[in-house]
């Protein structure tokens, strides 16, 4: 980009402010506060990709109650910061997942549930599936077909620890 004349004297003020804000957020004790807040407020977006969705539903339900950890399934991509990929990802759905991921504000995280999300599991030779890591970067994988709700909540706790460590 061509440097405008005013900027040649004062420097790029926008970039300067941005650098200061980033410095304040990431290099001061504010970072710990930020990480604490984010880790206890992981809201997954409503995007059910395949059949592990039943166990995803059960993990929010009374016996397992994932809301204890501050995890609250919420409506749209703009208000949430976590995608839970439930099982296999078809080619059609992969586009939707990518689109949703890009619509979400930073910082954002991905949990992938089930054997299908890791290496396609029982559908290893299917013609319509893609692996999750080809579509979005994954933070936590949960094995199982389907994984038990306890395992899903544990993955949330693991992600929380990862965020608090500064991941």
């Amino acid at each position, binding site marked *: 980009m061509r440097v405008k004349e005013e900027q040649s004297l004062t420097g790029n003020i926008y970039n300067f402010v941005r650098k200061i804000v980033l410095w304040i957020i990431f290099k001061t004790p504010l970072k710990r506060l930020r990480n604490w807040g984010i880790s206890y407020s992981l809201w997954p977006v409503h995007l059910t990709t395949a059949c592990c969705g039943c166990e995803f539903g059960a993990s929010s339900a009374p016996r397992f109650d994932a809301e204890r950890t501050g995890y609250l399934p919420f409506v749209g991509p703009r208000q949430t910061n976590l995608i839970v990929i439930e099982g296999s990802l078809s*080619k*059609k759905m992969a586009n939707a997942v990518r689109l949703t991921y890009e619509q979400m504000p930073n910082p954002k995280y991905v949990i992938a549930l089930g054997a299908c999300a890791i290496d396609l599991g029982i559908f290893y*030779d*299917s*013609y*319509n599936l893609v692996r999750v890591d080809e579509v979005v970067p994954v933070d936590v994988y949960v094995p199982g077909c389907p994984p038990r709700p306890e395992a899903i909540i544990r993955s949330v706790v693991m992600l929380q620890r990862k965020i608090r460590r500064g991941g």
Partner: protein
Amino acid sequence: MNIDEVSRVFKDLKSMIEPEAQISILSSNRLIITTSTDKLELIANLLKNYGFDHVKSVTAIDYPMKNIIEISYLISSFNNLNLSKIILTLKTLIDRNKSISKSLYKVWPSVEFLERETYDLMGVFFEEHPENTSLILPEDYKDIRPLRKDFKLIK
């Protein structure tokens, strides 16, 4: 269901559809009618008037060696409790290279999504079907249709 009733239905149907189609018994309450594509709608209308009011499945089977695709309509009834104990297979054979068949949408509206799925996964085009568009696969799917035998999963 006792054998008498099946054989009565069998006899009724036999007298009704012959000589355009052949009827045979598969097992205790499964009947099979085989006919050619151009007679399909005629036979279907006869069957509908007899009391078979819906289609349970449209199965297309690919036989590359014989160069044919076999399309089976599994038909039964909700209204007539005697007929609902029978599943009747209405079979027709079509040319595998052309793979064009006649839609039964006008006779049984319940075939709509089943035929669309067959078009999508097997590539059989149904004439006079209201919507011969892709249903399950992505809209820009270009490869061989997956349920054909020459579509191999692992190369």
